């Protein structure tokens, strides 16, 4: 029993330990996608200015010190302010950057659904020419005559 437990523990360690280490280790490539070059106004990933190079050196130094991704982003915010983050923080007024598009999407979807329902309801009432009873009387006779000319 104890041998089996030991084997299971070893397998679990072998499977999950590298993933845990990989998750904890920050990488310049990943951070560059999430922060801005404040002077260039672009993602750091796309920036080549002298300021961007100093920002990269700063990130590399913190990675070498073993800081996590969040700690490095916090350090960048302490240096350059919140504008250094490519995505605004999900708290306070900045939360509206996430909430407003969702609310707008829901409102638009509801408006569209209501519009479609009204349109369909209106269409079944017979007011639409495409769903009408068609020509009658003199018009019908003329239409039949015209069609007959093309009836081979």
């Amino acid at each position, binding site marked *: 029993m104890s041998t089996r437990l030991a084997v299971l523990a070893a397998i679990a360690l072998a499977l999950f330990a590298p993933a845990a280490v990989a998750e904890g280790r920050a990488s310049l490539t990943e951070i560059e996608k999430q922060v801005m070059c404040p002077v260039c106004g672009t993602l750091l990933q796309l920036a080549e200015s002298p*300021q961007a190079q*100093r920002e990269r050196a700063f990130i590399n130094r913190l990675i070498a010190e073993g800081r996590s991704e969040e700690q490095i982003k916090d350090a960048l915010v302490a240096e*350059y302010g919140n504008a250094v983050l490519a995505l605004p923080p999900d708290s306070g007024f900045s939360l509206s950057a996430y909430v407003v598009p969702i609310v707008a999407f829901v409102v638009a979807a509801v408006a569209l659904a209501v519009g479609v329902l009204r349109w369909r309801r209106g269409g079944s009432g017979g007011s639409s020419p495409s769903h009408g009873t068609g020509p009658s009387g003199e018009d019908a006779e003329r239409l039949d005559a015209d069609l007959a000319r093309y009836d081979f």
Partner: protein
Amino acid sequence: MSLRSSLAILGVLAVFGLLVFGLLSKGSSGLEIGDSAPVETLPQLEGGGSESLADYRGRWVLVNFWASWCPPCRAEAADLQQFQEEFGGPKFTVLGIDSRDLTDDGVDFVERYAMTYPQLRDGNGDTAHAFGTTGLPESFLIDPKGKVRLHAAGEVDEAYLGEEVVPLLPGGQS
């Protein structure tokens, strides 16, 4: 007016208002000669304290925006320090503002060029924006009442300081 029309007009007004707000908050108009200089409070580059630009009222101040990564800022550093040594005192000082720079880099820069005049830190660039700067370096001569008297966009040198700044200072040639 129907409810639907009112909502449509409100929607158009809201979009228009957002556009105007975006343009106004994005645009940065530069300070004109005679305008009041912004009086932001900024942390000192070294020492951990903070200072307001209003603390310098009553003195002539040459506010110089710089950053360690900016080559023209390196080029003008020695001339600014020389100017401070010659004219700095109770009536005048150069005031450096390290903008959008890393603190350690800024401190190294100050040490490398042996700068002795006060240095503040504008990490997010908001103060540079409030002054309406469009690049680095930029310098503003502020009079004792806090009004802008001179603006230099770009590097200043000994000749500029002597010909443009000195005549305005107390005891200058003007």
